[in-house]
C-alpha cells in the first residue's frame, strides 16, 4: 500500500507535465516524453535484473528488438503469398488476421496487433528462458560476454534477414488499437492519448517492480546478489530465481519494444545495436544500480535529452562524460548524491549539533 502511495506523486507529475505543456502550447514535448517512457520501461526491468539480482546483461536491446521487430513484421509483412498454408488458415480462423490495403492500395493480409504483440512478447520470454538457462550459470565478465554475444546475434539476424528489412528495418507499421478509440500510434492527433498510454504502462511496471523488490522474492534476489552461496543454503532456488528475473526483464524489454515500434511506426537495426544495450546498462548504473527510482529518473532524463537532440553531434560525447562524472563522483547513482546523501548529511549534522548542546 505504501508503495502504491509513493507512485502517486509521480502520477501527479505526469498529469502536471501534460497540463503544463498544453497550457504553454508546447505539447510537442510529449512526443519525446512518450518515447522516453518506453525506454524507461526496459530500463527499470533491467534495473531489477542488475541491481537486485546482480546479473549483468549486455544484451537487453536484443529483447527490445525481438519485441519490436516481431510485432512490426507480423503486422506489416503480408501473408497473402502464404494464404492457404495451414498455419495461416489456422490464424485466420482464430480471428487473428486482418486484411486490408496498404497506403498504395495493394491488398494486405497481416496479423492483428494484439496477436502480434502477444506472439512477440511470448517469443521474447521463450528465448529468454532458452538462453537464460545456460547463460545465467556464468558469472562476472563471462556473463557479460555471453549476454553481449546474444545481443550481437539478434542484431546480426535483424540485419541479415530479408524478412526484417535488413539495414532499412521495417517501416509503415500500423497503429496498435488497444481498445476501440485507444491506439498506440505516432499520429499527431493521438499524442496526448499516447503519452498517457506510455506513462500508465510505465507506472504499472514501476508498481509491480516496487512490489516485487519489497517481497519474499525481492529479498531472495538481493540475497543472491549479496551472497549466491548463502542464499542457496537458505533454500533459495537461485538458478530459478535468476532465470525468472531474467525472463521478467526480457518481457519488460519486449513490451517496450512492441509499443515503441507501433508508436514510431517502424523499427531499425540501430535499436538492436550493442551500443544501445551498453547505454541501458550505463543508465541503470548511473541511476544507482539497486535503485528503481534512480533508474527511472535517469532513463527519462537521458533519453529525453538525447531524443530531443539537445547535444547535437556531441550526444555520445556528453553521454560518455555523464557516465564518467557520475561514476567518479557519485558511484551510487545520481540520487544518492543529490537528495538522499546530502539530506542525510544535513540532518545528521543537525542531530550532532543538538547532541552537542545537550
Amino acid at each position, binding site marked *: 500500500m505504501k508503495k502504491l502511495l509513493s507512485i502517486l506523486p509521480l502520477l501527479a507529475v505526469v498529469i502536471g507535465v501534460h497540463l503544463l505543456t498544453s497550457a504553454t502550447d*508546447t505539447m*510537442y514535448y510529449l*512526443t*519525446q516524453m512518450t*518515447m522516453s517512457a518506453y525506454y524507461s520501461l526496459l530500463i527499470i526491468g533491467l534495473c531489477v535484473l542488475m541491481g537486485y539480482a546482480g546479473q549483468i546483461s549486455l544484451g537487453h536491446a536484443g529483447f527490445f528488438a525481438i519485441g519490436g521487430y516481431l510485432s512490426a513484421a507480423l503486422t506489416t509483412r503480408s501473408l497473402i503469398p502464404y494464404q492457404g498454408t495451414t498455419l495461416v488458415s489456422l490464424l485466420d480462423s482464430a480471428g487473428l488476421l486482418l486484411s486490408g490495403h496498404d*497506403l*498504395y492500395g495493394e491488398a494486405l493480409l497481416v496479423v492483428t496487433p494484439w496477436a502480434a504483440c502477444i506472439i512477440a512478447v511470448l517469443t521474447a520470454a521463450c528465448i529468454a528462458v532458452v538462453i537464460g538457462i545456460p547463460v545465467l550459470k556464468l558469472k562476472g565478465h563471462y556473463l557479460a560476454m555471453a549476454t553481449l554475444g546474444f545481443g550481437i546475434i539478434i542484431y546480426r539476424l535483424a*540485419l*541479415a534477414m530479408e524478412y526484417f*528489412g*535488413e*539495414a*532499412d*528495418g521495417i*517501416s*509503415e507499421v500500423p497503429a496498435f488499437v488497444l481498445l476501440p478509440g485507444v491506439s498506440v500510434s*505516432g*499520429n*499527431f492527433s493521438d499524442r496526448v492519448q499516447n503519452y498517457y498510454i506510455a506513462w500508465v504502462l510505465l507506472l504499472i511496471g514501476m508498481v509491480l517492480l516496487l512490489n516485487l523488490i519489497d517481497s519474499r522474492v525481492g529479498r531472495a534476489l538481493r540475497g543472491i546478489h549479496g551472497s549466491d552461496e548463502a542464499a542457496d543454503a537458505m533454500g533459495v532456488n537461485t538458478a530459478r530465481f535468476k532465470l525468472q528475473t531474467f525472463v521478467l526483464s526480457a518481457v519488460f524489454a519486449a513490451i517496450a519494444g512492441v509499443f*515503441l515500434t507501433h508508436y*514510431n*511506426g*517502424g*523499427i*531499425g*537495426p*540501430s*535499436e538492436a545495436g550493442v551500443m544501445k544495450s551498453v547505454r541501458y546498462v550505463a543508465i541503470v548504473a548511473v541511476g544507482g544500480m539497486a535503485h528503481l527510482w534512480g533508474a527511472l529518473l535517469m532513463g527519462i532524463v537521458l533519453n529525453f535529452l*538525447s*531524443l*530531443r*537532440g539537445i547535444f*547535437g*553531434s556531441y*550526444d*555520445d560525447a556528453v553521454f560518455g562524460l555523464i557516465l564518467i562524472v557520475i561514476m567518479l563522483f557519485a558511484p551510487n547513482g545520481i540520487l544518492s548524491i543529490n537528495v538522499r546523501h546530502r539530506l542525510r548529511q544535513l540532518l545528521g549534522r543537525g542531530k550532532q549539533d543538538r547532541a552537542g548542546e545537550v
Partner: protein
Amino acid sequence: AWAENIKVGAILAVTGGASFLGGPEARSLEMLVEEVNNNGGINGNKIELIIKDSAASPEKAISFAKQLIEEEKVLAIIGPSTSGETMKIKNICEQAKTPLLSCGAAEVIVNPVAAYVFKTPQKDSFAVKKIFMEMNKMGISKIAVLAGNTGFGKAGKGQLLKIAPEFGIEVVEVEVYDKKSNDLSAVVAKIKANKDVQAVINWSIVPAQAIVAKNMRQAGWDVPLFQSHGFGNIKYVEAAGAAAEGIIFPAGRLLIADSLPADNPQKALLMAYKKNYEAKFNEPASTFGGHAYDAFTILMAAVAEAGNDRDKVRTAIEGLKNFAGTGGVFNFSAEDHNGLGIEAFQMMIVKDGKFVAYTGK
C-alpha cells in the same frame, strides 16, 4: 530589411555508422546556407538551417522530424542520409504536409510516390542498368555480386538481382558482408573458386570498397571489378592504392568536372561546388555532399518561386524542369519525385589513381 527567416530543417547522420554520408552532407549545407545568406538570401529572406544529427538511428530521426515540423515549423526537411531513416519519417512528413528532400538512395522512397517526399540521389536502378549495359558491351554474362549490409548495399543488391535477367546476365554468386568488415579475403576466395564468374560487382560503401579491390588483386584474380556509384570519392581510390586501377563504376559528373566539355550544363556548378568545398573543408568533394547540395538548391529554387509556404514549395518542386545539379539534370513531375534519368550517370574508370570517363576498351 529581412521580411522573414526561412527555416529549413536537416536530419543527417553526421556521426555514427553513416557519418561518411552525413558528414559531407552537413558540411555542404552549412557552406551553401552561408553563401546564400551572404548573397542576400532568397528574395531578401535569410535562410535559417537547423541540422539535427540522427547518428543513423531511425528512432532519433522520427523524434527530430516531429520536432522540426511542429516546434521549429520548418518549411522543409533535407535528409535523412539513409533510406531506412527516410522510410520511417516518410509518413510523418506526408501527414504534416512538409516537403522532405531525402538524400537516401533507395527507390522505395519515391516509388510509390508520396506527395511531399522527394529524393536527390540517382536511382539505383539506373546505375545498375548502366553497369549491365557496359557488361553487355564487354561480353560478360556471368557475374558475382557483393554487397555491404547497409541500406545502400541492400537496395543495390535488390536492383542488381531484379534487373540482371533483362540484360541476359546471370548472377552466379551473391554475398552480403558487414559494413565494418576489415578483411574479405575469405569471401573473395570463395567466389573466385567459382570459375564461371567473369566479373564482380561490389555494392557498398567505405571501407569495404577498397578492401574488396585489394583482396581480389592480392588473390591474383584479375576479372573486371565494378563498383556502385558510392565509389565517388577520390579518397577511396587512394585507400585502395594500386588495387584500384581499372575499377569501373557509374557516377555523377562531379568527379570528372574538370574534363567535362564547356557546354555541359552541370560544368559550372560542379566546378564551383568542388572548388568551394575543397577550399573550405580541406577534403575532396564527394557525390554524397552533392546529394545535399542538390536538395538544398532544389529547395531554394522552389522557395524563390513559391515563397515560404510548404504546399506551394512542394508544387514548385514538382514543376522544376531542366534543373542542373551535381547528380545530373533534374526534371521533376507529379509521378517522378527523383527527376533524374539514366543519363545522369557516366561510367568511369580508375586510371593512374584518377577518375576518368570510361569509354569502353
